[in-house]
């Protein structure tokens, strides 16, 4: 287990270094001229040069990367061009908001999806299974903003049951905040349902076909006990891994949803930085999103290993 942990941690660190290089590479090398890209084609050459000097983009790329990466190691993510404050001061509240939305979405989505997956798996091949599976994959493939627009129209505008923006007023209590988050969370639930239910379903089907389930039935256990003790216990660990990986998507991948519901999460912040050509804030935001994903998948792997004795007790592989 210790060897597995160390190996996994080492890989995550290597990936992190490469990620920072890729993010920095895209943001610096592609445009050729950052100042021009930021200020647009009509700015004077002097102002472009001045901005390039201020940003330090007139120096060799490797020097720039070394300086930027050195800053990252000291916890310095750079300074936002448009707002003139450290990027982290803008990113941290946005990150908290994103986690809040992810939490509400999970509380609704995970129990529903697991239930759906178990039902589909137990009724494998029948109409219930087919309808759940087709509905699930169709919703999962739907761009979030399409699902969100339909929900906004139905619940926000036609019935007027729920607020159409996700941002509760300043200082609102947790319950009010949750109410404002309900529509975007429902949108995400519909998107994620298919992914999570599909994995649970596959796990249930595999467990049902296994020898230990057969044995359990043959030794006369009632079927609800077989399902609870044998089928679910084997079907759920992969589901947990998939659920955890989805956190990575929920924190950062939600640009369209956060824009649609005007929710100040990290996706909307990255979107705004891109709109305003605020490259330092954009690169910092993208990097933070990547780090969240890496940390979350690391936790998911460890959780999966801890739940799976074949990995927990086995070798580093």
């Amino acid at each position, binding site marked *: 287990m210790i060897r597995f942990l160390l190996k996994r941690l080492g*890989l995550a660190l*290597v*990936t*992190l270094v*490469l*990620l920072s290089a*890729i*993010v920095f590479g*895209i*943001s*610096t090398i*592609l*445009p050729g001229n950052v100042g*021009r*890209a930021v200020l647009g084609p009509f700015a004077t050459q002097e102002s472009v040069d001045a901005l390039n000097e201020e940003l330090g983009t007139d120096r060799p790329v490797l020097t720039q990367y070394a300086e930027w990466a050195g800053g990252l190691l000291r916890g310095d993510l750079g300074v936002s061009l448009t707002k003139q404050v450290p990027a982290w001061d803008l990113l941290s509240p946005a990150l908290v908001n994103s986690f809040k939305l992810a939490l509400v979405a999970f509380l609704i989505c995970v129990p529903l999806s697991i239930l759906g997956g178990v039902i589909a798996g137990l009724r494998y091949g029948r109409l219930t299974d087919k309808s759940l599976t*087709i509905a699930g*994959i*169709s919703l999962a*493939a*739907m*761009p*979030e*903003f*399409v699902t969100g*627009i*339909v929900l*906004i*129209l139905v619940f*926000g*505008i036609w019935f007027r049951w729920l607020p*159409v923006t996700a941002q509760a007023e300043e200082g609102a209590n947790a319950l009010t905040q949750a109410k404002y988050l309900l529509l975007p969370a429902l949108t995400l639930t519909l998107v994620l349902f298919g992914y999570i239910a599909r994995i649970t379903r596959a796990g249930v089907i595999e467990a049902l076909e296994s020898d230990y389930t057969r044995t359990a039935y043959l030794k006369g256990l009632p079927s609800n006990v077989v399902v609870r003790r044998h089928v679910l216990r084997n079907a759920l660990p992969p589901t947990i891994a998939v659920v955890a990986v989805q956190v*990575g*998507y929920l924190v*950062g*991948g939600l*640009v*369209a949803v956060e*824009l*649609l519901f005007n929710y100040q999460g990290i*996706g909307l912040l*990255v*979107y705004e930085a*891109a*709109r305003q*050509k605020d*490259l330092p804030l*954009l*690169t910092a935001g*993208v990097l933070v*999103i*990547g780090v969240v*994903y*890496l940390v979350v*998948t690391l936790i998911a792997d460890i959780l999966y290993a801890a739940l799976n004795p074949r990995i927990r007790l086995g070798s580093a592989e």
Partner: protein
Amino acid sequence: MSVAASPAPAPTGGEARAARTERLRLLLRAPTVVGGVLVLAFWVFCAVFPGLVARHDPIFDNQFPTSLPPEWAFPFGTDTNGRDILSRVLAGSRSILVIAPAATLIGTVLGTTLGLVTGYFRGVVDDGVSRLVDAVLALPLIVTAILIVTAVGSSGRWVVTLTIGLIFAPIISRTVRAAVLAETELDYVEAARLRGERGGYIMFSEILPNVFPLVVVEFTVRLGYAIFAVASLTFIGFGVPPPSPDWAAQINQYWTLIDPYWWMTLFPALAIASLVIAANLVSDGVREVYER
């Protein structure tokens, strides 16, 4: 479903053809696949002959009174620029039906090549590329796309196509690599090596035909994601620019007016939904038939 088209290790020409016919027969027997194909065919027809299906010009402003709700003459209403929304929806499938397959094709070609090389040579090349792929996959597609589009400094059809194709390449390479790793264990690869064939020949003439069904499945699955990605990028304003009647571009232009002008957003959104569901029914059918 009963009879399987068993993929023999080295099918002769006749067997391969029989397997293809069998797959097609299985595909066309599933009602969901047929439904999906019909919807896709309808949108492809609209994309090729927009003039035949759209009664009014989809782009010129002020042809009609602005912001009319749906009525007999304008079943989907008109937008704030005085255009018939039904005509715009019918003419709006073209951009996405060009960009999404083109991006997927670029991604599939690059990704398959990358997967063949890393799976065949293994070692340092494989380790290096695998770590790079890990790093790219740590970012949601839409975030990487925003970063690239912003850094390039211009959006539009070409940039979006290339960006999505490039992001797909590592994802596809990972799937192909896994299959290639399994193939290189087989005798025919060893035999080709002993014959003294070159790596390039073994990869593309020996291994590629054997992993090709997987590439086809990957293409259809990715096509669904590409539609998703193009629509999302256009919705947030980084994709197809107005005044294109592209569905997501229409939504980008009008969603802030959704209350009370819901028809300007709802109908393009439903069009996207129909395309996405159709593409998924088909790709799911293809996967089921090939992966048996």
